[in-house]
């Protein structure tokens, strides 16, 4: 499955980034670019919709760390609908403290300021 990514900004400042396929060293630049756009758009929250993401390699993890560092501690990052492999990868490498994991997109949580 090829990697696909997209970004849409909600009116209240949530950057919704959807990723599918495999996020590895050959595709992470796309994800990094979207994070850059979210930063440029002054995102107040970042929601990563990962239901279609089957694999995340260390290069993808680094973009998550990069996002957290660039966005600052005031901007929460939500990891949503992540598949088991991706959840495992995030937790085993200790990133679960840097993001909030949600089973589904819940506007009442993600878009509540």
């Amino acid at each position: 499955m090829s990697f696909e990514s997209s970004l849409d900004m909600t009116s209240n400042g949530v950057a919704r980034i959807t990723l599918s396929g495999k996020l590895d060293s050959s595709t992470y630049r796309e994800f990094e670019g979207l994070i850059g756009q979210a930063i440029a758009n002054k995102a107040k929250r970042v929601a990563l919709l990962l239901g279609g993401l089957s694999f995340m390699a260390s290069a993808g993890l680094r973009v998550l760390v990069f996002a957290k560092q660039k966005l600052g501690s005031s901007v929460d990052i939500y990891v949503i609908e992540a598949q088991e492999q991706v959840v495992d990868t995030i937790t085993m490498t200790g990133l679960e403290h840097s993001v909030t994991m949600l089973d589904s997109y819940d506007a009442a949580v993600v878009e509540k300021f």
Partner: protein
Amino acid sequence: MDRIDVHPTHLFQEFKLRPGKPYPFGATLVPGGINFSVFSRNASYCCLLLFRRGEREPYAVIPFRGQFLKAASREPDWADFRIGNVFTMTVLDLDHEEIEYGFRMDNPAYPHSEQGKPGFFRFDPARTLMDPYAKAIGGRDEWGKMPDWSDPYPHRSRIIFDDFDWEGDRPPEIPKEDLVIYEAHVRGFTKHPSSGVREGRAGTFAGMREKIPYLKELGINCVELMPIYEFDEFEFSKYDEATGRWVKMNYWGYSTVGFFAPKAGFAATGKTGDGTMVADELKTLVKELHRHGIEIILDVVFNHTAEGDHRGPVISYKGIDNQTYYMLTPEGYYQNFSGTGNSLNCNDPIVRGMILDALRYWASEYHIDGFRFDLASILSRNAFGAPMDNPPLLEALAFDPVLGKCKLIAEAWDAGGLYQVGSFPNYGRWSEWNGKSRDTLRRFLKGDQGQAGAMSQVLQGSPGLYGSRGPTASINFISCHDGFTLYDTVAYNGKHNEANLQNNQDGDNDNNSWNCGWEGETDDPGINALRRRQIKNAVTMLMVSQGVPMILQGDEVGSTKYGNSNTYCHDNELNWLDWSLTEKNSELLRFFKQIIAFRHAHSILRNSHYFSNQDWKGTGYADITWHGTQAWNADWSGNVVAFMLNGQYVKKKEEYGADDFIYVAMNMHWDALPFELPVLPPEYTWRMAVNTSMASPQDIFAHGEEPVLDDQHQVIAGGRSVFVLVGRKNN
């Protein structure tokens, strides 16, 4: 401004190349590509092999010296990507996550020694060699997964990102005297089904992370991990077709394949084949341990490698520069001071540099707090195997700036008969596993006569051994991975190593153990009660001794290996911590927690200097005084020792205030004995902190809850028991 060294100077097939940088050795991510650098003093030919991850055949073989095309003009050009004895080039536009790499080396001018025969050169232009500086090593990504035995390149160099979000982590830098070390095996700690860690994490770094609260609650503040450098669990393995099980494996891991790479099979993420993720998983464990105030020491094996002797495999070092990396006999055989086939030539300047580089890497990139050196006496030998007065490696380690705050601990002996406990070249920095104090502790514990004098040395941190170095030179232990567990020390007289399939010939015979009346498991409640008491006695002796105490994983819950004193080869319940014992033997676990807490609560037990046995402050009592069944009258000929510590002599008194008086009586005689107590100053009273002859929970009391003794003049100590009193000012 853009860098100007990101453009190729040469082409080889479709690969864009530049002359590389010799430092750092290994494969390093640089702007636009990967820099490869490998040393060989004797090779005249070297090429780089690139593999797509897991593939058997390389997709590229790029020579470091040879005919290339100039990148600008595409004219043929003979180039030599070599500086001195270092082959180095940068290959641009490589995907580091997807490749594995290796080297091939040769020098046709030298004879090529065949496997199985002695020789000084083991070049083979057809063999792919692992990079000695590989930061990740593939091929054994999942513990125990059957390898492809025909793979000509079984241990494969990988490249990782060396960045990590440490979130401000700093090594705790706990003073040595304040450490309580817990020796653990990553796989054994959580592999048992009872561990309760999440699926897929049993026996891994991630699994260990889930158990940090247990370690914290136990009270230890330093974990010493048995080898976690990449090793081959299939080395000397033996498979039983009938049962479909491995009956022998290289479980402990004292046989290094690569000194810079964590054992991929210890990572839950290992199966991804992503070396960076494996590194991140271990770094996350380190970060979480530090967050809980727990340091991490690695048991490192630099004395030999997994390449064995002349019959062993050629993985890396042999094929790169056999004479540099190994001590050889004049006939070209491998010196074997390790008992495993070869001995690393540690004091060779190149090997010394590699060891230093490795340790600096672990200290800086993984935030490791210290190192315990396996068979460290080999590190004091020269190229011919002779012990050196001033081994340059040990000196360099002692004074290395990056390692400046790391704990350095020597297993101060080797398998060649060099025994340096008390005399290891230390430069004021090195500590030692104190094997002598272990033996004394065990003899005293089982009631041997005439051990009282030696025991007084142990209790003071072995000043006779480490007079000028202080008690923190002494790592005190009563059990470690080698030899009996603490429970087995009180349950077996002799070793029972039949499961090792070596006719019970392996492992130490001199275990100084006593089975309390029955060899092995028994239902006899009296014997089991005595064993529990002996375990409590032992850990109490350890925790009231000056120096640095170390306990073995599982001793706190009475783990047994059923009398096997050498379980190096068992990937099963013999080595896996059975977590159900935390319930079954909760009495022991409680005692361990409390006695460790007792040590932490009393800084008089944790001095960085030796007691003088004098009252140089004029407090009315010497810093340490010796007693017997009569106060002030020690008997050094028997199996009874009593001593008192004066809390006025605590370290950093100005900072922490004075400690209590502490009085410890150890009655290793079989029958009860009365102990006359030293008289305290009038405003002080004796309180009972520990009495191992009492049933739980009266066996030990929490700090501040110790009951005042009814009789302030005498205590009856049960047979084979220890009691500890605190002398505290009345409220």
